[in-house]
């Protein structure tokens, strides 16, 4: 054997040259084309928002509910979510997404309604709406992106900012004595009888992306049962305001966010086989 060893790229090019591998049978992944517009997203490179948007689009397509789903976009980095998701959506005032979703769901009880909210939106200015929506057991899905910081306004301290974590308004680190403690609102709403399914996931690794997708799938499916609020926290990153590269931010998330915000199901419907969480 005196065959020359090929590099990966060369190998790939040879394969393409020798046989046309770009055929349908060989496609292992394709992004959703119906529920997701092909517009480039404005999110910073490496940001988790784009991944979660894509997962929502995938789930909506796979469940075949594109004509029956209404989303509520918040104020925050994902304020323009409706430019990316090709489904009916309503913008909400800062913090009020779950109230807006309540209004929609109450008059259209047969539709799938979800809100998409960041930590400042859901756990600071909108805490009242969040708790009361969950406590009424509104049959909606709340998707809560927790990156521990205000992204859109440029990196201020959020209710979920970790102790000692630096932000533009806690430049010396969050001092819990004067600035309060990071709020575990997901554990809090899990205590309420109105919540039906509460889980915490992440999208920083492929395996977690798959689990988050499963959770979102469950969150939509449970709406049919009319048993209460489904609440999915996605621990996410903010490379720009954490001032890290995307890879560093995911490592930091793993080492700092996850010990305080552990992944896994917090409340699952009894006698349900749908969940697949940790």
């Amino acid at each position, binding site marked *: 054997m005196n065959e020359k060893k090929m590099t990966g790229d060369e190998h790939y090019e040879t394969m393409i040259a020798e046989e046309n591998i770009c055929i349908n049978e060989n496609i292992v992944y394709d992004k959703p084309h119906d529920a997701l517009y092909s517009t480039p997203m404005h999110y910073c490179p490496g940001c988790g928002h784009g991944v979660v948007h894509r997962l929502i689009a995938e789930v909506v397509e796979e469940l075949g509910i*594109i*004509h*029956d*789903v*209404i989303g*509520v976009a918040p104020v925050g980095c994902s*304020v*323009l979510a*409706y430019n990316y*998701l*090709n*489904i*009916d*959506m*309503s*913008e*909400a*005032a800062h913090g*009020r997404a779950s*109230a*807006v*979703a*309540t*209004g*929609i769901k*109450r*008059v*259209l009880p047969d*539709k799938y309604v979800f809100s998409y909210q960041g930590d400042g939106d859901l756990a600071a200015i909108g805490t*009242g*709406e969040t708790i*009361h929506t969950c406590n009424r057991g509104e049959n909606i899905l709340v998707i809560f992106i927790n990156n521990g910081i205000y992204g859109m306004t440029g990196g201020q301290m959020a209710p979920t900012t970790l102790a000692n974590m630096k932000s533009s308004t806690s430049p010396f680190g969050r001092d819990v004595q004067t600035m309060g403690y990071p709020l575990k609102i997901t554990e809090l709403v899990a205590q309420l009888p109105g919540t039906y399914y509460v889980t915490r996931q992440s999208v920083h690794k492929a395996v977690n992306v798959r689990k988050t997708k499963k959770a979102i799938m469950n969150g939509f499916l449970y709406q049919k049962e009319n048993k209460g609020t489904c609440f999915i926290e996605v621990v996410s990153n903010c490379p720009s305001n954490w001032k890290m590269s995307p890879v560093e931010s995911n490592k930091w998330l793993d080492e700092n966010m996850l010990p305080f915000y552990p992944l896994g199901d917090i409340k699952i419907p009894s006698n349900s086989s749908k969940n697949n969480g940790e």
Partner: protein
Amino acid sequence: MKKEFKLMKGNEALAEAAIRAGCDAYFGYPITPQSEVLEYLSREAHNRTGMVVLQAESEIASINMVYGAAGTGKKVMTSSSSPGISLMQEGISYIACAELPCLIVNVSRGGPGLGTIQPAQSDYFQSVKGGGHGDYHLIVLAPSTVQEMSDFVEFSFELAFKYRNPVMILTDGALGQMMEKVELKPQVERFHEEFNWATTGRKNGNSRVITSLNLEAEKMEEINIHLQKKYEMITKNEIRFEAINCEDADYLIVAYGLVARICQKAADLAREKGIKAGVFRPITLFPYPYEELKNAAKNVKGILDVEMNAGQMIEDVRLAVGNELPVAFHGRMGGVVPSPEEILEKLEMKFLGGSNE
């Protein structure tokens, strides 16, 4: 068909009218003096028409629920009283910009601050001139009888859907609480119309979005220009007013809502004394009947503007009649309702050399 009459409180007549108008949903929060609306609807509405009635955790939540539900093209409403309306202003601004039809009822009370639970008209500015942030207008209707509290509900929904604009019924605690005979309208079916702007689940290739956001200044300006054109159209088409004994009047009393009725009594007393007084009552506060008031005032010697506040509508009265005509003001504040006698006394004092204060 036989007419249906009932003795009812203003708040209850309004709530009953909402059910009969085929209203789809009400979201509200208790506050005196309008809690009867929420109570009446909680008791009556769902069983009769399937209407959604939800007590929210705050006025802020209420108005945002209204925003959400109105975005689906349903007939949606809320009610509150002054401090609660202040809390709603951000949401109202969003609703106005997103052009969602809905009804907001303000059974106002005296302020500022926690103020009082007695009736007042001190929310004129915040209702008529905007109230929240940005350039927008509600269509504002001011009933003066319990009958109008009832009639204006269906009329409000008509206007709201015609212009895709929030409508406010601006009334006060006295009208909300007092009982009068009302002729009730027949029950209207709840409608299930599909609007091409409503978010009810995507219909064809492209989604629909309810939003008030545009990050490009030029585009946001276009939205503003569109809104202003709509307000011009509303002004052209929807002005309503009532002129009572104004044809031969030497003096006009201008007032809206309940106060206009008290002024009518004052004008009657004046005529008994040989003073020819008439009452001009704007029914739409936005759009304001500037031209109509100017015409009614063409041959008068003076105008007395009467309000339950420190003088808010008087700015519009002055805009209507200009500087040529003397415009005097009589107002009571903090929940005090003026009497016909004191209004007449003020009229005489200001224009007929009556006793000085």
